[in-house]
């Protein structure tokens, strides 16, 4: 295949412009992200193709499998263009209706539309659904729109024009200058200014330098990187090429989580296509600049998201962090100057080259520029990926975009920033998302996981959950993290089992501060955050566990009696039917009874009972 030039890019764009504007025919854009694959979108796609062929519509209607659309909880989902009609939770039985009603008769299929939980009205147009309406897609600009396995689709959406501009018309100084102007900060969590990092590495002496992409998205509850890699892999490659030109590197690695097979497959396809078209390899776009990218699969270690640990892992060793300095910009992978950027950071780079740093910095707050992608999940109505300008209040995220808390339950807290982050309570929901503001209230921006928790969540249990995670993922190299987190976990377990003592809170606080100040890497230093932030805002729950031996949210099984309150029991038998081990005795018109020797304390009955009768 001949190598592309800038003119080729422009002519591909012109040829495909009608197609991506959906002018030439009807397009059915089926979400092909991990979430929708799991709910059966591939079967829906096959059935659609068959039905279209049966009705001889295959020339007028095209089916495109896109990357992750972002509204993951509604899968399998599909958007019909022109019209931008959003269909959700499509089953195989719905296919003939879609084809007959929508495509032939021109009538929208109401029952597959999004229904507003408040007004109960159907909203047909995707961009009018509140989940999408409040968003500003920049990093996610191509999601749900292009076929991630088609480089032509990507090129048509201005793909590789940012690279062309950077390689052919800009000096490394100018590239770094635009990055500094953009104010883009590392989206992986730490928020270090990307331009500054590049500038260090650019000035660092050395023949061999490396550009690394951190796709080891380890924070539980964060899936924006997976989604970007699945929906728009070329944007990440482009970001790396531009970074390489800025620091004068010839080789790049993408360190990808092995848990993300679909993302790895699509990345590999993108790399192969880019190589065939001369967008990777020697003399990219005729600029004389050479750069190559390889995928390196991780093997399941959270600590490898830390930069020095990640580099050790690529070197084939145990992924343990080392003290800095020397910083990777001076001595990184194989002791050579290296920069490491997160997926979301890199995918913003091509647009910054194309539209300028000032354009990027035109939204956001004083210290946090641009947009940020959040992965919203947990006890919230609209689960999925959300991209908003920096400075958007958390309340907008959770209520306007997220649609609030399901099952008429009350909001309790929102966990931001993964295991190293913190829980934010209701009265701080107007905090804007901004690196500094979030840190002030005791959490971190982190990679952007937003986990909403309702009143049934026990904060002691959440702190224990995160501490268990940190403890298991501690690499064991430094004592504060290895021993300190273990001790914190023991204390939390003790409290949740009802053996807590008055002094435990104080010990946990002191220990947390010690770990924070003395641990070697970011994982250890931020490890106690979940404990500190829950203690800060939900102290009374810890006290209830310790002094009253009571779990207010009824989650800590050792503090529950597993007895049925005869006054609240409506004798409905739901607990009897739900119990997996037949530990509930019940007959019609009788109060149920739990046989304690059989009960495994699985909480199934508790969740099923609508009347709160289980104590």
């Amino acid at each position, binding site marked *: 295949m001949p190598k592309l030039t800038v003119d080729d890019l422009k002519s591909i764009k012109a040829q495909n412009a009608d197609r991506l504007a959906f002018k030439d025919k009807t397009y059915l854009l089926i979400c092909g992200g*991990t*979430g929708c*694959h*799991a*709910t059966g979108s591939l079967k829906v796609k096959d059935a659609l193709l068959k039905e279209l062929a049966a009705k001889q519509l295959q020339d007028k209607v095209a089916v495109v499998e896109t990357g992750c659309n972002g*509204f*993951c*909880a509604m*899968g399998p989902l599909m958007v019909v263009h022109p019209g931008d009609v959003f269909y959700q939770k499509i089953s195989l039985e719905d296919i003939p209706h879609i084809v007959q009603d929508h495509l032939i008769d021109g009538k929208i299929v109401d029952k597959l539309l999004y229904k507003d939980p408040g007004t109960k009205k159907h909203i047909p147009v995707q961009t009018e659904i509140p989940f999408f309406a409040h968003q500003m897609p920049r990093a996610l600009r191509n999601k749900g729109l292009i076929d991630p396995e088609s480089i032509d689709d990507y090129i048509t959406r201005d793909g590789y024009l940012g690279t062309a501009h950077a390689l052919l018309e800009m000096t490394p100084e100018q590239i770094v200058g635009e990055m500094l102007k953009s104010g883009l900060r590392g989206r992986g969590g730490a928020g270090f200014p990307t331009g500054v990092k590049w500038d260090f590495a650019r000035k660092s002496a050395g023949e061999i330098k490396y550009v690394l992409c951190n796709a080891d*998205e*380890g*924070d*539980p*509850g*964060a*899936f924006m990187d*997976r*989604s970007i890699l699945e929906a728009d892999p070329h944007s990440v490659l482009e970001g790396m090429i531009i970074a390489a030109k800025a620091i004068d590197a010839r080789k790049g690695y993408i360190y990808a989580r*092995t*848990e*993300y097979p679909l993302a790895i497959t699509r990345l590999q396809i993108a790399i192969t296509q880019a190589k065939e078209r001369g967008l990777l390899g020697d003399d990219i776009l005729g600029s004389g600049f050479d750069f190559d990218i390889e995928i*390196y*699969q*991780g*093997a*399941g*270690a*959270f600590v490898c998201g830390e930069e020095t640990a990640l580099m050790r*892992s*690529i*070197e*084939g*060793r*145990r*992924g343990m962090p080392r003290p800095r300095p020397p910083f990777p910009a001076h001595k990184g992978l*194989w002791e050579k100057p290296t920069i490491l950027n997160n997926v979301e950071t890199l995918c913003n780079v091509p647009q910054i080259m194309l539209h300028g740093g000032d354009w990027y910095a035109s939204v956001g707050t004083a210290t946090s520029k641009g947009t940020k992608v959040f*992965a919203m*999940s*947990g*006890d919230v109505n609209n*689960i*999925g990926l959300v991209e908003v300008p920096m400075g958007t209040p958390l309340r907008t995220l959770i209520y306007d975009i997220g649609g609030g808390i399901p099952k008429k339950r009350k909001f309790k807290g929102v*966990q931001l920033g*993964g*295991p190293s982050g913190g829980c934010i309570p209701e009265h701080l929901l107007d905090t804007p998302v901004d690196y500094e503001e979030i840190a002030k209230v005791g959490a971190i921006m982190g990679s952007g*996981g937003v*986990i909403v*928790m309702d009143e049934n969540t026990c904060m002691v249990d959440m702190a224990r*959950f*995160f501490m268990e*995670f940190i403890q298991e993922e501690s*690499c064991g190299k430094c004592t504060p993290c290895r021993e300190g987190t273990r001790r914190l976990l023991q204390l939390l377990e003790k409290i949740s089992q009802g053996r807590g003592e008055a002094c435990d809170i104080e010990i946990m606080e002191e220990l947390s501060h010690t770990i924070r100040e003395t641990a070697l890497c970011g994982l250890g230093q931020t490890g106690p955050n979940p404990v500190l932030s829950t203690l800060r805002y939900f102290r009374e729950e810890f006290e209830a566990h310790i002094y009253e031996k009571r779990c207010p949210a009824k989650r800590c099984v050792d503090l529950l009696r597993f007895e049925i309150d005869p006054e609240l029991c409506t004798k409905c038998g739901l607990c009897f039917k*739900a119990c*997996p*081990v037949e530990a509930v005795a019940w007959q019609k018109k009788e109060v149920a009874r739990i046989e304690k020797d059989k009960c*495994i304390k*699985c*909480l*199934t009955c508790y*969740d099923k009972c609508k009347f709160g009768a289980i104590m």
Partner: protein
Amino acid sequence: MRTLGHPEHADIDAAMWSQIDEIIRIHRPISGAIITVLRECQNVVGYLPVPLLDYIGQEMNLPRSEVYGVASFYALFSMTPKGRHTIKICLGTACYVKGIKEVLSRIENKYHVRDGGTTEDRRFSVQGVRCLGACGLAPVVVINQDTHGDVTSDKIINIVEQYE
């Protein structure tokens, strides 16, 4: 230079050995390739028995301690045999908030197996795993290659029972 032939092992047959040798041959010249070699060998055999680790170390010209160190560090690698079906239970935060703990305890009780273990008949291996990034479907259980979303403790056994 080969000092030992293939060590005897009940779970590795001749065809597997030739695949293993091919993996090693391709990756031997690449520095830092040990993690890739271990992953691919595990895909062939199903797990990494210690004699295999020794063999890989010798063929890759790496000390046994280093190979064992890498294999024991990363969660992906297992040195014990796996069941016919692997049940991966996502222990990410979103799944936790939505009740994965109850799902896990349901499986553990039904099949008398602990997280990380394998049933006696080698039918199932149960593995609590890190966030699978399918939080929109939480709670999530992955059996072999199939992702099951929105599982609950009362639904899970019916799902698991489909895998003989």
